[in-house]
């Protein structure tokens, strides 16, 4: 088990390094010269060259990369081209609001998605199932920027009961959280419905009935315990997705998180900031994947002992 975890961590580090290399190359391909971003307009060419040298942008790409990487490893993410502030300062103050937004939404989605999916599966083919499946499909297929705008329109402009932007009160969290949550409730509910239906048809459920167990015991112990394994794994696998999804939602609601910072930095070609945020998401993805694996090994004895599911 420990060897397995170590192996996963080593692979994870390699994945992150690969992501940073791709990212660096990709940045070179983007149009526009970062020096003009740093210097602003109407600067004499001599000054431009000076800036280029002082920021190390005259060096070959691979040297720039190693320079950047060696600083990242010790926690120095570089300096923003636009604000000239350390990127760590800019980014780290934004992480907490984003995590608040995404974790709230993930936990809510999990708590709501699980029972919705289970009820839909247990009432399969009945009115309740059709209603819930309709709900699931509706929100599952809805783009989040559009959902965000609609919610803003309905609750902010027509009903005037919720603030439409910013983050000045806990109320202003409601709409962004709802925008992120509704589609992921649908995702969890969909997964849970499928898993429950599959488990319902398993022979061991019939065994549980044949033992004379009451229905609630069969549902809440035998079925739930099995059907929850993929949903719990999904919680972690989904975390990086929700963080990426927050980019759009934060931009729509002017919510001061990492996503909004990312959005603005892309517009201003502020490469160090963009790179750092993508790096954070890459690390988050790798860590969540490892956590998801460990958790499913913990929940499923077939993986725990056998090493792998047959």
């Amino acid at each position, binding site marked *: 088990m420990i060897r397995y975890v170590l192996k996963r961590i080593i692979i994870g580090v390699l994945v992150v390094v690969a992501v940073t290399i791709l990212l660096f190359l990709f940045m070179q391909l983007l149009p526009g010269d970062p020096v003009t971003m740093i210097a602003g307009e109407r600067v004499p060419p001599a000054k431009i060259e000076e800036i280029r040298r002082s920021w190390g942008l005259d060096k070959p790409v691979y040297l720039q990369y190693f320079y950047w990487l060696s600083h990242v490893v010790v926690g120095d993410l570089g300096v923003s081209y636009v604000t000239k502030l350390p990127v760590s300062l800019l980014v780290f103050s934004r992480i907490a609001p984003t995590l608040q937004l995404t974790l709230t939404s993930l936990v809510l989605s999990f708590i709501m998605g699980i029972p919705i999916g289970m009820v839909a599966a247990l009432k399969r*083919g009945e009115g309740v199932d059709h209603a819930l499946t309709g709900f699931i499909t509706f929100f599952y297929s809805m783009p989040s920027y559009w959902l965000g705008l609609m919610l803003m329109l309905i609750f902010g402009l027509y009903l005037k009961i919720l603030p439409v932007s910013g983050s000045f009160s806990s109320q202003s969290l409601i709409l962004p959280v709802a925008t992120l949550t509704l589609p992921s409730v649908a995702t969890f509910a969909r997964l849970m419905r499928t898993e429950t239906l599959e488990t319902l048809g*398993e*022979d*061991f459920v*019939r*065994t*549980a*009935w*044949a*033992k*004379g*167990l*009451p229905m609630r*015991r069969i549902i809440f112990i*035998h079925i739930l*315990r*099995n059907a929850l*394994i993929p949903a719990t794994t999904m919680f972690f696998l989904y975390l990086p997705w929700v963080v990426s999804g927050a980019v759009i939602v934060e931009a729509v609601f002017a919510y001061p998180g990492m996503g909004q910072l990312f959005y603005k930095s892309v517009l201003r070609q502020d490469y160090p900031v963009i790179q750092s945020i993508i790096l954070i998401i890459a690390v988050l993805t790798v860590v969540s994947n490892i956590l998801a694996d460990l958790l499913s090994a913990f*929940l*499923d*004895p*077939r993986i725990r*002992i*056998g090493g792998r599911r*047959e």
Partner: protein
Amino acid sequence: MPLLDVKGLKTYFYTNRGVVKAVDGASFTVNENEIFCLVGETGCGKSVTALSIMRLIFPPGKILSGKALYKEEDLLKIPESEMQKIRGREISMVFQNPMNSLNPVFTIGYQISEAPTVHFNLSKKEAWKRTTDLIRDVKITDADTRAKCYPHVLSGGMRQRTMMAMMLSCNPNLLIADEPTTSLDVTIQAQILDLLIEIKKKRRMSVILITHNFGLVAEFGDRVAVMYCGKVVEIGDVTTIFRNPLHPYTRGLLRCLPIGYKRKSKLGFIPGTLPSPIDTPSGCSFHPRCEHSTKSCKLREPELVEYEKNHFVACHLYER
């Protein structure tokens, strides 16, 4: 007074391909302390009959009519809460496939202790004691360690023993064993069957043994019912049926039975194929394959009549 009296049981499945008449008017009785065999080709409705008695038929299946009298109560009529008290405690069932019949995420000890805990309100300690005793009863060594194992580390034979321990945990009066050994290899099959018979004798319970294999019927059975297309076509003492099979279908099954290879022998070959359960033939459903078939066989369904004492058959040849 039989322990279980099944009368005119009909269970259909409403699938999108059509109505599957899985059990279509089956009748038989099971006496106290006997091994009652249910034989027939694959798809003739043996498993569905057993599941109907346990009332474990789920949509699209439906039990349409019939009675299953157990201790003067009709199992098909009593409320679900009453039925729960009967399942696992009075009547229990061992399934065909031990590989998937155990829950992968709970230890076998937990799964064995569940039924007695629920039915008898046992404390944790009492339940554990009972569980390890049961594991020993089904001849699994090292009960205390084995109880903490998860099903996937056990072999097929071990899982079937676990399944038996689970189903015997509340001392049922009737155990339904639905082809308990078909998925196991031959040496293990014999061990499991011997264990079943030994436990049956010790506990004086009745067993419904569902099987394809007439050899097993000859070796272990007290009485036997032959099923065809969801109906019981012949029923009687095992010795009587072997000495004097009446129904053309039973005769066909017994014809090719080799003597001496009892446990290995499979059912005999009968010309024609099993009709689709969606549109079963009119009249006697065996008529397309029967060498004695007449006009009235196609038109009228034969009833199960007592040909000699305790020997029933459903065929026009024997109607008086």
